[in-house]
């Protein structure tokens, strides 16, 4: 059996204001094995983004345990988190989030620079290789503003892959793309998963794209309410518009 990359047990996140206590995550159990392609889906406010933030070490859980690549990731000190994130996680965002002042190659090289200890020649080689792999090598010296949305997202995926992380966290990666570009990006993710064995956890509310994953985890009110594989999960809940392709 493949090694577990993410292991979350009874994960809770509570936001407190003066008088109100909001349970964004109310005891989530989730594990992701190496090479899996998991989609997390659910209605707005179900806790997807909160779960993503905690899995990405961008936020602290209120309770529960979180192990990433076999290490306790819930109790890392702030200064260790950046290095841990850099080493184990690749991010793909809905809004691409490329740095406008940096060229495509520089954007992709950024995580390697922050990792440190990698010679420039090796860094350049890895950037060239990954850009070639995603078909963006000819755009290496362009700036983000000179690229289409689909191309920008491919660059963002390249940036997520360049450190060969244990897992790629993709947050609505097709949210800002037209259907053609979205398809292309999804095809790229699938290809990376099947061909290179990349482990991917994708948050999306679009079932059309969720079904491309091998496993779908459905959240509701901060809890995992379903965990199923591919098309099966849709069949189980035909009444849920959120799981119906083209639903609201």
């Amino acid at each position: 059996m493949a090694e577990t990359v993410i292991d979350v047990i009874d994960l809770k996140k509570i936001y407190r204001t003066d008088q109100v206590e909001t349970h964004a995550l109310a005891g989530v159990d989730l594990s992701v094995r190496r090479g899996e392609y998991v989609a997390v889906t659910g209605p707005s406010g179900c806790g997807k983004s909160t779960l993503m933030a905690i899995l990405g070490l961008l936020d602290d859980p209120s309770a529960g345990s979180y192990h990433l690549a076999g290490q306790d990731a819930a109790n890392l000190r702030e200064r260790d988190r950046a290095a841990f994130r850099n080493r184990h996680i690749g991010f793909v965002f809905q809004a691409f989030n490329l740095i406008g002042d940096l060229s495509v190659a520089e954007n992709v090289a950024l995580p390697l620079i922050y990792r440190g200890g990698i010679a420039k020649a090796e860094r350049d080689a890895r950037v060239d290789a990954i850009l070639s792999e995603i078909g963006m090598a000819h755009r290496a010296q362009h700036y983000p503003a000179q690229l289409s949305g689909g191309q920008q997202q491919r660059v963002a995926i390249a940036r997520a892959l360049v450190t060969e992380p244990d897992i790629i966290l993709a947050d609505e990666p097709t949210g800002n793309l037209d259907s053609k570009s979205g398809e292309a990006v999804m095809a790229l993710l699938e290809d990376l998963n099947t061909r290179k064995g990349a482990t991917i956890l994708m948050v999306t509310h679009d079932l059309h794209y969720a079904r491309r994953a091998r496993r779908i985890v459905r959240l509701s009110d901060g809890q995992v309410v379903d965990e199923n594989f591919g098309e099966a999960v849709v069949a189980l809940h035909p009444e849920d518009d959120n799981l119906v392709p083209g639903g609201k």
Partner: protein
Amino acid sequence: MRGHLSHDATVAWRGLARRPFYAIATIIMLAMAIGANAIAFDMFYDVEVAPLPYRHASDLVMVRHEVPKTGLTQSIVAPRDYVRMMAMIKGIADAGLWTSGGEVPVPIDGKPRAVAYSPVTPSWFRTLGIMPAIGRLPSLSAGRKDGPAEVMISYKFWQSAYGGATDVLGRTIDLGNGPQRIVGVLPRTYAFVGGNDVLSPLVLPLVADQMNNLNYFMIARPKPGVSLARMNNELQQSKSAILQGKLQKSRHDFRNQILDARPLRPMIIALSSLGSLPYVLQGMALLLLGLAIVNAANLAMVRQRARNGEFVLRRVLGASRGEVMRLLLLEQIPIGVIVVPIAIVIAWLAQRGIDSFGDAIVILPFHLWFGWQAVACVGVLTFASLLIIVLFPLLQLSRRSVDSALGLGGKATIGRAARRVQRSLGIVQIVLGCALLIGSAGLGGSLYIALHQPLGFRPHHRLIASVLLPTSADDARSVETIVDRLQADPRFRSVGGIGFGTYPFSSDMEYSGARRTIAGAPTYHANMAIPEIGYFRALGLTIRQGRRFTRTEYLTGAKVAIVSAGFARHLYGTDKVVGRSLRVQGVGTYQVVGVTDPVIWRVAPWHLAPGTMFLPLRSIGKMGQPLSFVHVVVRYRGSVLPALPQIRRIIEAAIPGSVVTSVRSYDQQISDHTAFRLIAAEIALGFAFAALILAALGVYAVNALIARSRLPEFGLRAMLGASPSRLLRLALTDAAWLLGLGLAGGALGGYLLIRAMSPLLYHVREIAPLVFAGSLIVIAAIVLIAAWCPAAAAANTPVKTLLDAS
């Protein structure tokens, strides 16, 4: 690591180049402010910090005997005071006397040359710890009647008069009282307040009158371990014994006289025209820098907020907080690299401008020159300023977590805390801008008015010639001969002479005591001019009451006087004084026959201007010493240039053996005399201009950027139904709060600044309302325009566009 650093540096540079507004605004503001600081610090350092050219100068003190009630406020003593102090004050290790001897014609290599000399006690050199460049110091016995006649010459005089020849030692020089042997050359750095070509021995005791003459500077070196307080205590205890028989009429008078010792440097500064100017200019420059820093810090915060997404993303990708902060710090390096040379060039150009005034701004013994300290000041201030500027965004960054990273789009509105900080900085901007504008415009305007006030005479188309007469000449007759010869030349409209003493805007100061002829009337010290009869017409002096001297009065030496209106008001409390009597110390009793308009003798606060009394040259006699130095005012026709050599030739032919030390236009004389204040006025007005630019640039830029960052909020409000006029009102209400608090603080700051500068200001009551009102209106207009423009633009922008601005 090195690659990482160079990558960050490249990115920082590129980021600034691609969005240069912040960098350009910061560079302009800092370069202006730091350049101003460099030039101000240069002057401050040279005057307040640089070592004086004496050994252990900080130990030296100047002893002063002042009688404020009589207008005698120069820090001077009489030789008899000195002799008594040397005997009575045990805390003095050594002390010397110095006085200006003026200029005398001295034949050097067969050609007469004007030589400035100063009689000093031989102990002067030991007290100041002077080591000769060549030769030796005069022996102590040179200060005794039977002692050797030994003099020291200055390095500059040695070079110019003797070509730096070493055989100058042993040669003699005759200053009018017999040949004296040159025994040494002063070091190149030596300088005192003036008259330094030759330092001749002051032989004590002098004749009785001269022993009481309050015309000597006394510098003392206390014994080791003797504090200034102890020395002053000794002086206080011995005051009545030291001053006995001089100036006092009763015990009460002693209490009104000051006899104490003060540290040397501030006393020399007080003697110069500098006063507290170095502090004022440095303070203003620092305020200017404060304004620039606050402006730039506010801009940096706005910029940083716009880049929050980028910084968070970097952290998501693995950058530590320190690495992101380092990027922010690295961005300051290119700014600093550009600011430093620009600020140095600004300071250098300003120094060139000051240097263009030439000798007119030489203030001995200080050497005002552009030096390493200005460059160091630029470096240190640039580093410190950029560090302070980046501190605000760094603090913001250090508090920010990455928990919102997945929703990197940013908020639609500015957070309350961020807005509070920005508003506070905005208020500080307005306060500093207002205060600086008020202070610098007040100082500059005040000096400008003082420099352009009515002089009481007409200097245009007039020349002033200074003549050293041979000691054998009959003084009054010589002046009249010179006047007659010049008057005979058709190129000159009118000519007038003036004897011993000074003339308006001369480089020397000469006060004489005078009092009303009633019992117990106090003595008052004022300028005394001793004119030949043609003087009033030649100088264009206006007689507002009474009349000029008649020819008969003049020729018979009648004791009649003309006084200025200022003098009359000081002494009599009214300017209707024709027919009143006036007792002039050492000269006799005069009857006032005329009153002139106030005559400006030198640029000074009006309440300190002592006024002038004019006594006919023929009425004076010898006054205990030869006139030797006389001046002639010539009103010329046509061009000035041919007149200059002509005057020199006529005078030297009229009085053989005389030396015309200078012939110059009166306008030039005044402009040289006022050069330093003119520079101060120009610097202050430059500061006012810079303050205006910085305030305008900073306030406008920051308000505009804040307003731009509020566009999504405006869009939100518009979406919810706010009308364009309501949006405008919202922007202006915000600005009004800033403005109200800022203007109140600025007015208070300006008031405090004006108050601190009051010793330097003239006509402050007249100009203050204008300066305050003008400054506050200008700043208010800038703030309102800065708030109005972007808000008006936003009010006419489609709501969707505003929302997309987030």
